[in-house]
């Protein structure tokens, strides 16, 4: 009961340490410092427990070993070792203030060992984690067993005392320490919300293995223990019986010898008397020597004289077995003494006979009863048995035939039952014991009874009883059983730990390594390899996994390459859909760039002339990336252009486009877009915004500013949205910059955005730069900002420059039939205009040749056999001193500039006729451009004056 206090103290300390570890200051403490503190605390508990126990045979049964075990198993190896040393040293020095010296060394060693054991097992078996309570209890048991073995080992010279001590201390110490460790671990488990029920599903190999190994070892332990017990039990009985037999045989031999010698002496005296006087009365002789019977027997076995008158000459000794022995023996020997036994002629009578040969022939036989020879023998018998010891505390007792004790003490003459032996049947019948008997024999001095084992034998009318306390007989058995059980616990526990560690190192650790690698592979890192080479099986497994991974890697690479290719196609689809014939007319010019990200997005820009005086510009961004975005972009672009060409207002275009895009938009993609429709002649612009970035607008006399009009919802986002149109009038020199979020949301390595302010800044600094140079410069600025970070969104930029004609500089247009016949009219028109501009004759000539060439070309080929018109426009820019010619036809699309120049170095024979006209034109004019727009072939030529 006293043990409960230190057990509780252990539990409380565990609770306190565990809870305080939840608080920050303790949590932040470095590991070793914490371990030392825990070690010291538990060391103190260990020391306390050392003194607070139950006194037993001069020392204290206590739970000192529990604290180091708890510290080591629950909190960490260093704590266990430290508290083990503290507890151990306390025990060593405790002899100076009353601690038992008998177990001093053993206890000290055991406590220190407990700390090391806890530390080692935690590290080796439990991966430096707290074991389950079951293991904790097992470890405590093994620890206490070692403690007991140590007590044996350190007290080999007084093993029976050590055994007595161990016998009494084992159970309470094992129970006490196991309970302390078990409770401590359970408390921690409850606090950390561990589940005590086994987890569903598969368990770890280590656990399965631990369980089965434990089961096997427990079974093996039980079997060997039982076997040892049975074996030792049998051995002890045999040994005890041997001890009994030896003692009894000695006594028997002594009595037999004494009895025989005594009767033989009588027989010799009788013979001497008889031979001296053969006529002497045998009855007188018998009376003189106090014997019952004297027979004179001849060599044939006939009794020729006797004290028993009726047998004289009528009984032959050969007729009965008992008496025949004498006849037989006397043939060879001079004398013979027979043991006390029933006589042959009358078996109800027990008698002891002795015979000596007569000098002439035959022999004389003397016999007496037990009463007669016992009177003489009793003293001797008591002496023989009195000082005879059987084992340490055993004894030999003698009774007469009536089972009355022959002893010198107060039991003399008393019945055997008075000392506690209830005579068994065999004893009552005067037979020798055939088995071991048990009786509670009373000690005459103390009056206490103790269980004895005994056997008995009847010799010469005496019952000799050999007895020994059972405890003494069983001491060796119990001692060897205890030691063997202890040793087995130790051996099996060691075996368990070793096999477990071995398996862990050979299999479980390798599996864990492989699993860790596989986990990395699963997470996508295909560059790791499994490399467990500790044995052939794992080596082959590693190779297999590596092969699989590399094959997988190859497939993935192939798939990635295919996807890359498809993305490349998507990029091309996207790019090819964007117009690149940038108008650089007098009224306006447009320039745009789209830089697709690696993973193609859905950006696009667009511009087209809706009629002679209106032009539309558009920038848009489809949500998402990849092929779906590219496809959706195509759809959106087509729909918007289709609606625009029907002549709708910009808000109607968006409203309708939204409806159309919403149909079957199962992938929930959407488009942000900004669109403006500009009347070139007046500069009036209508624009609408569907969730797009606001464009930058620069007024001719101002700086760029964001055109922040209220934006509508994104296209394809929701049905039934109505968009509003905003209006604005552009003035000469105004510039509009459209872009997508790829510009403002370009991100650098520090995750900072390029941003609207920086864009506005840049545009203002470069406001006067030509669009064709400005956009690449902007891209370069974005690249500089982004640095190494990859471009993850498309970058789309479009600049619209509004360049209105100055007064009087409007192009003069005239339409002619596309026929060679009309050439003079055409040239006439051209010459007239040129003369108006006061153009030198030489230039007039050159220009006319060029005009003729391109006109003739159109007249011959543009319309085939059918009729068509050619529209000529001429304008003179006085400032720049240049004349611009514009020729438009609605014939088959044909770019005359594509034709390669003729080789003018060839000889006349080799020269081909044809191809010269366009060549002359290109040579003559300062600039020739071709676009196909609105179903028109438009050739623009500029000639400087």
């Amino acid at each position, binding site marked *: 009961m006293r043990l409960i206090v230190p057990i509780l103290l252990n539990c409380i300390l565990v609770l306190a340490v565990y809870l305080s570890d939840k608080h920050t200051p303790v949590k932040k403490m470095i590991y070793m410092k914490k371990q030392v503190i825990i070690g010291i605390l538990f060391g103190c508990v260990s020391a306390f427990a050392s003194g607070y126990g139950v006194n037993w045979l001069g020392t204290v049964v206590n739970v000192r070993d529990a604290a180091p075990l708890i510290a080591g198993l629950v909190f960490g190896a260093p704590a266990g070792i430290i508290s083990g040393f503290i507890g151990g040293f306390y025990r060593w020095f405790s002899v100076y203030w009353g601690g038992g010296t008998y177990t001093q060394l053993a206890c000290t060693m055991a406590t220190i060992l407990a700390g090391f054991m806890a530390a080692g097992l935690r590290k080796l078996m439990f991966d430096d984690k707290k074991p389950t309570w079951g293991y904790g209890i097992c470890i405590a048991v093994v620890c206490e067993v070692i403690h007991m073995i140590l007590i044996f080992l350190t007290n080999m010279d007084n093993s029976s005392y050590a055994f007595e001590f161990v016998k009494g201390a084992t159970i309470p110490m094992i129970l006490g320490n196991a309970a302390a460790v078990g409770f401590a671990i359970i408390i921690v488990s409850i606090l950390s919300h561990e589940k005590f029920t086994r987890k569903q599903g598969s368990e770890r190999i280590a656990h399965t293995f631990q369980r089965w190994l434990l089961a096997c070892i427990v079974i093996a332990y039980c079997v060997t223990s039982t076997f040892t017990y049975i074996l030792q039990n049998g051995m002890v009985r045999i040994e005890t019986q041997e001890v009994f037999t030896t003692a009894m045989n000695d006594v028997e031999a002594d009595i037999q010898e004494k009895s025989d010698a005594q009767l033989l002496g009588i027989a010799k005296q009788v013979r001497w008397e008889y031979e001296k006087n053969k006529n002497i009365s045998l009855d007188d002789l018998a009376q003189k020597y106090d014997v019952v019977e004297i027979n004179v027997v001849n060599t044939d076995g006939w009794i020729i004289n006797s004290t028993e008158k009726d047998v004289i000459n009528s009984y032959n000794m050969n007729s009965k077995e008992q008496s025949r022995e004498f006849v037989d023996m006397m043939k060879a020997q001079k004398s013979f003494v027979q043991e006390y036994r029933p006589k042959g002629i009358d078996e109800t009578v027990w008698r002891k006979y002795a015979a000596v040969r007569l000098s002439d022939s035959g022999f004389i036989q003397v016999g007496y009863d037990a009463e007669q020879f016992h009177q003489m023998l009793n003293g001797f018998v008591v002496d023989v048995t009195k000082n005879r010891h059987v084992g340490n505390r055993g004894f030999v007792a003698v009774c007469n035939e009536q089972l009355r004790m022959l002893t010198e003490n107060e039991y003399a003459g008393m019945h055997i039952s008075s000392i506690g032996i209830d005579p068994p049947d065999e004893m009552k019948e005067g037979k020798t014991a055939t088995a071991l008997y048990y009786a509670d024999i009373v000690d005459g001095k103390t009056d206490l009874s103790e269980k004895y084992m005994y056997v008995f034998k009847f010799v010469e009318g005496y019952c000799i009883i050999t007895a020994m306390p059972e405890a003494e007989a069983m001491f060796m058995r119990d001692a060897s059983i205890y030691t063997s059980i202890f040793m087995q616990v130790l051996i099996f526990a060691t075996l368990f730990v070793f096999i477990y560690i071995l398996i862990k190192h050979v299999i479980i650790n390798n599996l864990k390594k492989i699993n860790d690698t596989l986990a990395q592979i699963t997470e996508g890192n295909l560059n790791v390899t499994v490399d467990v080479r500790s044995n052939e099986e794992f080596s082959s497994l590693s190779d297999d996994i590596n092969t699989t991974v590399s094959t997988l890697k190859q497939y993935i690479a192939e798939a990635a390459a295919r996807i890359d290719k498809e993305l490349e196609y998507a990029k091309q689809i996207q790019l090819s859909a964007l117009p690149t014939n940038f108008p650089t007319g007098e009224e306006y010019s447009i320039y745009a760039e789209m830089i697709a990200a690696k993973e193609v997005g859905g950006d696009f820009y667009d511009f087209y002339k809706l009629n002679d005086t209106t032009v539309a510009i558009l920038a848009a961004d489809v949500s998402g990336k990849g092929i779906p975005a590219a496809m959706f972009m195509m759809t959106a672009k087509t729909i918007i252009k289709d609606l625009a060409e029907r002549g709708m207002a910009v808000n109607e275009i968006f409203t309708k486009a939204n409806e159309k895009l919403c149909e079957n938009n199962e992938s929930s993609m959407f488009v942000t877009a900004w669109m403006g429709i500009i009347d070139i002649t007046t500069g009036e612009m209508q624009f609408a915004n569907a969730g797009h970035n606001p464009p930058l607008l620069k007024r001719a006399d101002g700086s760029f500013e964001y055109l922040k009009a209220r934006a509508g919802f994104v296209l394809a986002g929701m049905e039934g949205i109505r968009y509003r149109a905003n209006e604005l009038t552009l003035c000469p020199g105004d510039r509009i910059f459209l872009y997508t979020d790829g510009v403002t949301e370009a991100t650098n390595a520090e995750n900072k955005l390029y941003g609207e302010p920086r864009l506005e800044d840049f545009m203002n600094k470069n406001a006067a730069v030509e669009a064709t140079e400005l956009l690449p410069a902007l891209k370069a600025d974005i690249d500089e900002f982004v640095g190494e970070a990859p471009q993850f969104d498309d970058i789309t930029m479009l600049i619209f420059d509004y360049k209105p004609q100055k007064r009087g500089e409007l192009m003069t247009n005239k339409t002619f039939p596309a026929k*060679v*016949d009309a*050439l*003079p009219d055409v*040239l006439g028109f051209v010459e007239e205009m040129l003369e108006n501009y006061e153009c030198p*004759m*030489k230039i007039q*000539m*050159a220009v*006319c*040749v060029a005009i*003729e*060439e391109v006109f*003739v070309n159109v007249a011959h080929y543009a319309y085939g056999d059918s009729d068509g018109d050619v529209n000529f426009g001429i304008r003179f820019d006085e400032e720049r001193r240049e004349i611009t010619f514009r020729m438009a036809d609605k014939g088959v699309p044909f770019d005359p500039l594509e034709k390669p120049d003729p080789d*003018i*170095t*060839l*000889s*006349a*024979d080799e*020269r081909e*006729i*044809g191809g*010269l*006209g366009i*060549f*002359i034109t290109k*040579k*003559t004019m300062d600039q020739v451009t071709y676009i196909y727009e609105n179903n028109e072939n438009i050739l623009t030529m500029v000639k400087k004056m």
Partner: protein
Amino acid sequence: MNIEMKRNAEVTTIEITGRLDTTTAPVLDKTINEDIEGTKDLILDLKGLEYISSAGLRVLLGAQKKMMKIGSMKVVNVCEAVMEVLEMTGFVDILEIE
């Protein structure tokens, strides 16, 4: 365009004045192909020619090719404007210009 042809035994001189363009070139072409039978040396006097287009050049090239087989052809009195075209088109290397 105006064409004046002077024949002197096997030498024929054609004076071309005005514009030799797409519309007029066929006339000259016809003249050269049909009206100079028996001529060995052809002299094209371009003194009055103020304008020539590729159609005219084509005729000149055709004439050059034809005359190379039977005799020779010479172009004379080329004005500056026409000369520019001839230079531009590499005809100066083909034609014999005086």
